[in-house]
């Protein structure tokens, strides 16, 4: 079987698996967020944190919950790292310096998992499992909670109440992320990923010299790393490391874990707004972009010309032989179209276009299907923009799901789409203007620029993957990327929740023959176009000077 056919078959298998999980998982999540019942363990948690899970919150209260919880999380994670040297079970690693500790804390709370450190050489068991892995769960649950609040905004009328943040957070963690992670971890262990608390082993290499192997609760962290679209690896090599991702099957399984919740959330959305077809339209938009990006990625990686590439069957530099070009392309697209940022190949070594595809995927706002929760709310914001621009063309003031898109709504949506481009472009511009940046770059020319552009794109969009080559462990990069991650995560959430509150207050407009149908292929096409033009055009000049210049040069 040729590698191309293998790649396509892998992709097809992945799509089928996702398709099978779509309905049951989506419906299950809808039930989780609509149910009145509380599990016993959940009641204990509510008691412990002193929250009343039945109180309905308006958007400011919901937002306060999100921000307060996240702030506490950042502080907790920061202190844990700063005190690592004194904590037991730290494998003898020292405390983390302030700037890096801030960066890492921001990174994991913002569901980004940008790592300016090498896991196996920096973080002990306590921080990895007690701090980082915990954030892998709750930061993902926060994302889903905000998305669900927005969905409630569409579904509810003449109220302003968006549900209870604490209930959503706890349920998402206990009923959705935990069970699936447990199954995921068992599958990974069964396939060869490690799961232990052993220390560091010195191992001799075949060609002489020595090598250190860390033990650790890798499989459990791996499962939630992908499932919660976090991406922070136990090891520096991330999912390219055989302890994290042992073989071709686990590779595909990890991609499945990355995509399964974000895709299924569209079903949850459809269920909760009372029309699964609306969910399908959003799903179709996500799938169109995902399939298109994967196809392009495979094309550029397989196609890449030159004698060395011909021998290798494509651009094999920076890729694992275990996964090949097909598996690596599928992974690279999935990880950048979501807010995951786990890698099983080095994005810096992708072809010029391939690197551009990963960057563009993030720059679209990570909405196809995007991060857990953040993908859905990001795409819904784009849907609002699409409805607003083109919806006028049916001769009515724009409305989506029976809610008018008026001045207030468009103000929040417009602010939302401003945030990440502003962060990415301004921080990249400042970094490029600083002479010190040049010393952090491994490459010069277009590729060097791509390293910096990628770093801020990844940070502000909460992806977390890195274009290897940039030494980001400097006070400037740690701090600025840390800020980009926090602002890129929480400022948009402010607008999403404000929008949700505004929508929930409205009286719904009944659908008539004169209403723009947002559950039809035409709308999907419109939404794809809006995403590509509105989000894509913002970055076109920057991309032209990085990956496009590189890709077109050959």
């Amino acid at each position, binding site marked *: 079987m040729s590698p191309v056919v293998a790649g396509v078959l892998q992709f097809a298998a992945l799509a089928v698996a996702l398709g099978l999980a779509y309905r049951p998982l989506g419906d299950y999540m809808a039930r989780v967020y609509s149910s009145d019942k509380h599990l016993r363990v959940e009641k204990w948690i509510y008691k412990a944190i002193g929250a009343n899970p039945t109180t309905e919150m308006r958007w400011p209260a919901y937002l306060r919950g999100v921000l307060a919880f996240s702030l506490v999380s950042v502080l907790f994670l920061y202190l844990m790292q700063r005190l690592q040297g004194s904590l037991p079970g730290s494998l003898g690693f020292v405390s983390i310096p302030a700037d890096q500790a801030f960066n890492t804390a921001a990174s994991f709370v913002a569901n980004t998992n940008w790592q300016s450190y090498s896991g196996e050489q920096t973080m002990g068991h306590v921080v990895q499992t007690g701090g980082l892995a915990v954030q892998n769960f709750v930061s993902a649950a926060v994302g889903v909670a905000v998305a669900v609040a927005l969905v409630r905004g569409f579904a509810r009328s003449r109220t302003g109440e968006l549900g209870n943040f604490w209930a959503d957070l706890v349920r998402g963690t206990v009923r959705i992320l935990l069970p699936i992670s447990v199954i995921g971890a068992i599958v990974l262990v069964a396939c060869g990923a490690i799961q232990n608390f052993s220390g560091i082993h010195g191992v001799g290499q075949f060609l002489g010299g020595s090598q250190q192997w860390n033990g650790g609760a890798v499989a459990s962290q791996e499962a939630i790393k992908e499932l919660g679209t976090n991406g922070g690896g136990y090891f520096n090599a991330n999912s390219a490391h055989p302890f994290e991702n042992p073989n071709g099957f686990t590779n595909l399984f990890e991609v499945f874990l990355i995509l399964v919740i974000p895709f299924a959330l569209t079903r949850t959305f459809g269920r909760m707004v009372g029309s699964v077809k609306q969910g399908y339209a959003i799903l179709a938009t996500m799938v169109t972009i995902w399939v298109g990006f994967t196809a392009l990625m495979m094309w550029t990686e397989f196609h890449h010309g030159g004698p060395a590439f011909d021998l290798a069957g494509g651009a094999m530099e920076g890729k694992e032989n275990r996964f090949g070009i097909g598996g690596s392309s599928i992974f690279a697209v999935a990880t950048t179209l979501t807010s995951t940022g786990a890698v099983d190949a080095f994005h810096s070594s992708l072809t010029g276009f391939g690197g551009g595809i990963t960057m563009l995927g993030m720059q679209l706002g990570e909405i196809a299907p995007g991060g857990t929760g953040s993908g859905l709310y990001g795409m819904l914001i784009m849907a609002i923009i699409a409805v607003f621009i083109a919806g006028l063309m049916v001769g009515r003031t724009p409305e989506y799901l029976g809610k008018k898109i008026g001045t207030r709504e468009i103000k929040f949506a417009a602010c939302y789409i401003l945030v990440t481009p502003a962060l990415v472009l301004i921080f990249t511009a400042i970094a490029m203007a600083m002479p010190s940046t040049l010393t952090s770059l491994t490459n010069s020319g277009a590729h060097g620029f791509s390293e910096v552009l990628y770093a801020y794109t990844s940070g502000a969009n909460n992806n977390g993957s890195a274009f290897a080559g940039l030494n980001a462990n400097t006070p400037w990069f740690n701090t600025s990327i840390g800020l980009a991650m926090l602002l890129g995560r929480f400022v948009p959430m402010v607008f999403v929740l404000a929008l949700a509150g505004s929508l929930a207050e409205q009286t719904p407009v009944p659908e008539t023959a004169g209403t723009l149908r947002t559950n039809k292929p035409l709308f999907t096409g419109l939404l794809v176009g809006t995403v590509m033009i509105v989000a894509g055009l913002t970055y076109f*000049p920057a991309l032209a000077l990085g990956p496009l210049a590189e890709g077109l040069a050959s």
Partner: protein
Amino acid sequence: MTTGTKNTKNTQNAKSTQDSKTSREPGSLGTKKHEEPGSMSTATPTRAPHDDLPGGHKPEAGRVGGGMFDPKQLVKSFPDAVKKLDPRVMVKSPVMFVVEIGSVLTTVLAVKNPGDWFGWAIAAWLWLTTIFANLAEAVAEGRGKAQADTLRKAKTDTVARRLKGSSEEQVPGTGLRIGDLVVCEAGDVIPGDGDVVEGVASVDESAITGESAPVIRESGGDRSAVTGGTKVLSDRVVIKITTKPGETFIDRMINLVEGAARQKTPNEIALNILLASLTIVFLLAVVTLQPFAMYAKAEQSMIVLAALLVCLIPTTIGALLSAIGIAGMDRLVQRNVLAMSGRAVEAAGDVSTLLLDKTGTITLGNRQASEFVPVRGTTEAEVADAAQLSSLSDETPEGRSIVVLAKEKYGLRERHQGELTGAEWVAFTAQTRMSGVDVDGRKVRKGAAGSVVAWVEEQGGSVAEDARALTDRISEAGGTPLLVAVEDADGARVLGVIHLKDVVKEGMRERFDELRRMGIKTVMITGDNPLTAKAIAEEAGVDDFLAEATPEDKMALIKREQAGGKLVAMTGDGTNDAPALAQADVGVAMNTGTSAAKEAGNMVDLDSNPTKLIEIVEIGKQLLITRGALTTFSIANDVAKYFAIIPAMFAVVYPGLDKLNIMSLHSPESAILAAVIFNALIIIALVPLALKGVRYKPTSADRMLRRNLGIYGLGGLIAPFIGIKIIDLLISLIPGL
């Protein structure tokens, strides 16, 4: 609605039918102009000189067209466009304000480096872009100015004759206060808006409505409102002033057509916010580009960056946005509708329920006699003869139609009252509900069934057995039966029945089908009983009807629809319509109506033609479609501009980027200049579209979206590739470049 309609509700169905004769449903106020729907006046002084006025309410002419666009207007409005360059004016449109800053910046740079033809060219074209945007707005406003000037002429400084106790004093019209009583006699110009409190007069309202036929204004009832600036033609009336000077109807009209009172509509504000945020995004993209370019050792001049920025920000829609809004209002004015707020025009596009008054909108003004049905033992001709004779003294439209039918169908020459000597005429009154004549020992009567039956019995006669069956049959069919009776040598007896029928206007069914496809529900409002209403509703093809409607019923219906999130439009003219007009999202008051109704509504139809509601909805939709189409077009344009400018900027350092130059433009300078020129010219090219509105055909949302996305979305992607290439070709032909 008037009290007459209420009576209909309170009395029993068929027996009370002739009551409706006296009830004036909104829209059938008895002013002459309603008798012939479709005769919308032309060549009125209040209109702009456009000769393509639509056929008004003729159903087949229902498509909304726009005003003609005359290129000369561009030249005429040029000075106004230059005046608008004032930054304090420009700042209202954030997109164009950025362009103006770019123009200033590039000009300064060009002055600093006067030898650089490219800098001068870019600066010049950026200024042109700004001016073109202002020109679009100025042209749109200019069309209103002509109308305003005509109105001003009507508003000459009048001298009012104010009543003070029993004496009169002369005060200037501007010195009047609310509550003042003024006297107007034949030849006087009415000094301010008010209600007639004493007397009857015929008034020439052509200054406002353009309709030259005088209208009757009288104290009490729904025809008491007079408008300042109109002229009393006969008789004497006392008017109570109801508005302050400067706030009269004519003042508001002037403000409206001039655009001075124009406020941005909610959707326009929302769109402005989105455009502003897109402008900021592109501003960021361009500003941050410089450090990237410096790293790539391809530092760009400020002129190129300004050019790139102006090309990327949505200038096309930014330039045309306010012109689209003004033109939308203007399209209403051309149809003699004054929208008191832009919000109402937008709401018109969103309307999902139309309340249409039956009379005048769905049916021709009045019921008409359609047949004479004899009872057993008499002939049709006998009935026709008696019916004609007894209707000669009935001047109501129904009565006239009986005479007409008798003439057309039975060849009975119309007799005149004077021809019959010794005849004693019994005129129709609302109390007796009968008319007739006593002549040659013969008494002929026709009228409401109950009244005629009572009359026959009073005369000692008997009612034919089958008369009851005949009237019932007509009632069930939705018609109105009138009985014809006679008393002569053979005694008093019923001869037959006249079938009065509502005549549904031609083409209404198709019109309602269209509305249904657009997702708009039509509800017929009538004072008729449910049976009659149902029959007419079925014949006309409306979705629903409200029979025996009182103003309270109407109000309740509106509130019910609104509670379900629907927007409701209605027309009305009576004082008791006022609450409903105020409650409706689009309330169109008839100009013939009371001042209370005009106050309450958010639009006034100067032609007082209730059918126009449908056109108003279409204009509202067209306005929104135009806005959406040009926004889509504007944003889609950016793709091509990138392909022109990015390679031009960076192909020097990264030769691979020249592959993006898919238009194979001549040189970097010509590529950038071509993009800027295209960006400016497209504004001018689209001005006619912005003013006229995009072609609008009522159809479902899906089809409309597909069509418009095809034209303005795909078209917006492709058009600039072609346009920029052509301009680049032309530039490359200039020798020396």
